[in-house]
């Protein structure tokens, strides 16, 4: 069987990691200070590494001989399953850091739980990712605090970023048909179980940062069923350009 819930679920995790890793990699060489170039490089590498392991696993689950590159480079946007938050443009440094904080505050406890998955491969990938996401969380939380409690300008930019990105946060906690059976079987994680941890992390960091937690209004959703923002197509046109221009070549 090919398009199983487990395949879909693994792809969602993989695509989210790849798209965010790709976004962070766009900063390298363009950061405010060299140390941040190095940090973006680290975090980008972590995420791309997670994506590679997850794609390989997805390819095996699917059983059609697709490897990590076939999955990353030869699917169009409607077949991508990442959450919308991670495909949002980098914007300024505050926008990137706040996006990273919102995601890492979720991904850290999520992978902690996934490390106990009945799927041994997912569990192993998650166990490694937990350590990585702990660093992403620490780094992005420190910057969120620094920017929020820095100058008036940095405060304004951080608050703007938070307000802009807020509508994309609820998608992280959604579950659907694809995941429900997997959650019951102890393979997938129920994201609502990490909501309290996420809330607590946010409240703590935002208060230190003197930033105001936005009110929940209408929440955007759709990435995990292939309905994306306009941004993903542009990411893929860059990411996939060489593979598409030279079909069948190996690199």
């Amino acid at each position: 069987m090919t398009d199983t819930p487990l395949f879909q679920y693994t792809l969602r995790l993989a695509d989210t990691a790849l798209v965010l890793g790709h976004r962070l990699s766009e900063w390298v060489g363009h950061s405010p200070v060299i140390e941040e170039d190095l940090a973006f490089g680290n975090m980008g590498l972590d995420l791309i590494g997670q994506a590679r392991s997850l794609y390989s696993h997805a390819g095996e689950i699917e059983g059609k001989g697709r490897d990590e590159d076939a999955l990353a480079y030869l699917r169009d946007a409607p077949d991508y399953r990442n959450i919308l938050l991670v495909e949002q443009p980098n914007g300024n440094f505050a926008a990137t850091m706040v996006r990273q904080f919102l995601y890492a505050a979720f991904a850290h406890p999520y992978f902690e739980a996934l490390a106990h998955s009945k799927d041994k491969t997912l569990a192993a990938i998650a166990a490694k990712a937990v350590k990585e996401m702990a660093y992403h969380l620490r780094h992005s939380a420190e910057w969120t605090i620094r920017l929020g409690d820095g100058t008036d300008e940095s405060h304004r930019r951080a608050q703007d970023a938070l307000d802009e990105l807020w509508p994309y946060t609820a998608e992280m906690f959604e579950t659907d048909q694809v995941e429900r059976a997997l959650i019951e079987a102890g393979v997938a994680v129920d994201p609502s179980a990490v909501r309290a941890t996420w809330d607590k992390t946010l409240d703590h960091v935002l208060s230190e940062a003197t930033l105001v937690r936005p009110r929940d209004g209408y929440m955007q959703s759709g990435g995990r069923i292939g309905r994306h923002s306009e941004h993903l197509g542009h990411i893929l046109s860059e990411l996939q350009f060489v593979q598409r221009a030279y079909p069948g070549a190996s690199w």
Partner: protein
Amino acid sequence: MYTQALNTQDQAPSAASDPLADARFQARVDAEERIEPNDAMPEAYRRTLTRQIAQHAHSEIVGMLPEGNWITRAPSLKRKAALLAKVQDEGGHGAYLYAAAETLGTSREQMEEQLLSGAAKYSSIFNYPTLTWADIGIIGWLVDGAAIMNQIPLCRCSYGPYARAMVRVCKEESFHQRQGYEIMIALARGTPAQKQMAQEALDRWWWPVLMMFGPPDKDSQHTESAMRWKIKRFTNDELRQKFVDATVPQGHFLGLTFPDPALTFDAATQHWNYGEIDWAEFKRVVAGDGPCNRQRMKQMRAKHADNAWVREAATAFARKRRQRAEAMPIAAE
């Protein structure tokens, strides 16, 4: 590494030159002792080294731009991760080289200011564009290859912090060079379009890479004092020849043709003879009229200016935190 432009002689007269102290210093250098930050050293030595290390650091940082140009378009996830890690390494080299230069009394901010104002140079090789994926292979294989030729002797440089930084940098650079060559192997074994891409990249990069070693010895005035101070241990032409001898067989193994009809093996000397380098192009690119000089400087200045608010925020936050910490004991009383 990119010590190419380092042949610019420091012409400023050394204000307080003390012949006795200079002789003591030279004796230490001759005895292969390492000079450390707090040791006495002639002002000209300090200036020359500061400039060389800063230029080296600037080159690492500016060099992130042409390579970073392909991170988002790397053709496979493995290549993407490797390139990202590589560009990150270059940033790391920049950071420690700035730290090594700071031990000589110039701050990183001052050095960055000099780069942005155009007062300091970086390696001219990065004023050439990366147009196809093959350029990433070529930069690893040839640009890093040339860098290693230049840098290995710097591991024995008389100035301790620089020499020690070079040991680590060289290890990473040789890894990059192998990675670059491996990209070239994949292209050489690939489709006709990939082979053509590899050849076209070699055609564009070969001569600029040979220029990385700097002007020919007959025109290089800086070599003498740098050699005496054991900052430099081989002349430009010696290093260039070593590089050509090592590289030509590697290119032939790939099935590539070097864009130099005069390239011939001399059985008597066991060296590869190469044709005349276009030094007018070299001077033109160093002077600012390479294909990307303006673009690179514009990118560097934009990133500095656009992110000034981030650095200000970090400074302001650090100040607030310090003030709060200082206020605490008083509050406790």
